[in-house]
């Protein structure tokens, strides 16, 4: 009888004591083919195997992009050899102004931001329709071009795991970099989990996420 009680209580204890932290799997990242600041092609497949933080901006973006780029910069500064806790990390800023953002403009934005080109790509779609499909529909980022050529846009960052699954969406303004890093570290631990811990993660996803 006692054993039955223990068995029944085990799932509750698992969720309560959380030997692993579950970051939900939200959806697949949209597939894309872009051109980066060097004029080279960057596709969604190129990011597989790396944890990726996506941001959305444009070459002539001023103050309203500073905070978001600042969070991404702070995250980048915590990487060591392009990795966090032994897992490769990349950053991608997608322009929603391909009509004006040439690779040279993106390169200039990258330089202004102080980005390390080895880990942080600035890329653009082939035309405004492709940008709308990717950023607007695919990533769900609302943006609107104003008469003076600037944009109003949702402040969004998206954290994607090595499989290309979206794990966290930050939609309420630039998140605290420490929060983003903490979640990235959780994903890194999950990515490195093997054997018994791998099964523990899958069980945790089952127990924590299936109620949705």
């Amino acid at each position, binding site marked *: 009888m006692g054993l039955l009680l223990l*068995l029944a209580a085990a799932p509750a204890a698992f969720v309560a004591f959380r030997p692993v932290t579950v970051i939900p799997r939200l959806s697949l990242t949209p597939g894309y083919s872009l051109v980066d600041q060097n004029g080279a092609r960057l596709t969604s497949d190129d990011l597989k195997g790396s944890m990726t933080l996506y941001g959305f901006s444009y070459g002539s973006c001023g103050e309203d992009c500073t905070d978001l780029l600042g969070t991404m910069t702070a995250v980048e500064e915590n990487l060591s050899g392009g990795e966090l806790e032994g897992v490769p990390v990349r950053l991608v800023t997608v322009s929603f102004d391909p009509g004006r953002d040439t690779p040279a403009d993106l390169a200039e934005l990258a330089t202004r931001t102080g980005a390390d080109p080895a880990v942080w790509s600035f890329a653009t779609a082939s035309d405004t329709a492709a940008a709308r499909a990717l950023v607007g529909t695919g990533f769900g980022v609302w943006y609107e071009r104003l008469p003076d050529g600037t944009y109003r846009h949702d402040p969004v960052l998206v954290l994607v795991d090595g499989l290309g699954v979206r794990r966290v969406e930050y939609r309420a303004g630039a998140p605290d970099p420490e929060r983003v890093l903490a979640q990235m570290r959780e994903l890194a631990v999950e990515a490195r989990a093997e054997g018994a811990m791998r099964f523990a993660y899958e069980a945790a996803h089952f127990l924590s996420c299936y109620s949705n």
Partner: protein
Amino acid sequence: MAAALVLLAIAGGFLLGRARTGGAGALRGSLIDPPLPAGDFVLASADGPVALGDLRGRVVVLFFGYTFCPDVCPFTLQRLRAARQLLGPAAEEVQVVFVSVDPGRDTPERATSYARGFDPEFVGVTGTDAEIAAVASSFGIFYARAEADPGTPGDGADDYYLVDHSATVLVLDREGSIRLLWSGEVTAEEMASDLSWLVAE
């Protein structure tokens, strides 16, 4: 007491996790757990419209390619055919859908006859540029016309071009949710093993 509960919970989690990821053998594909809902789509085949939602009840394998593809696509479709053969009677529970990412050249007739050339049970579909762009994106698949050096196939000299595209194969469960992602290197035996797990669910 709490320590005992935690230990039991971890052990339970271990067993639960093992049960969920294959039991007898680990899954070769990358498991998406909990399953991600896959949006519906309606694309065109030689026999009329094909709605992904109508295929529920069977395990669906989605592969994105094009009929002029020199290697990746034939190779993948051949392995899918071999995998279905390895499944025996369980193959009836698996529907392979080939989606063309080259609507400029692949008509519904072309896509269908291409897919059927590998296995008469395969479905081949295509759509408008906008439809294919939306469907591919929603499944995390990229595709782009390849740049080619002058003098090589695809340089545009005779309207022949190559399309670079994700080789990832998606496997949906009977409820129409995305469960597995296979890389381009998965063998027919591994596909059959993963598929039999999903069929048995």
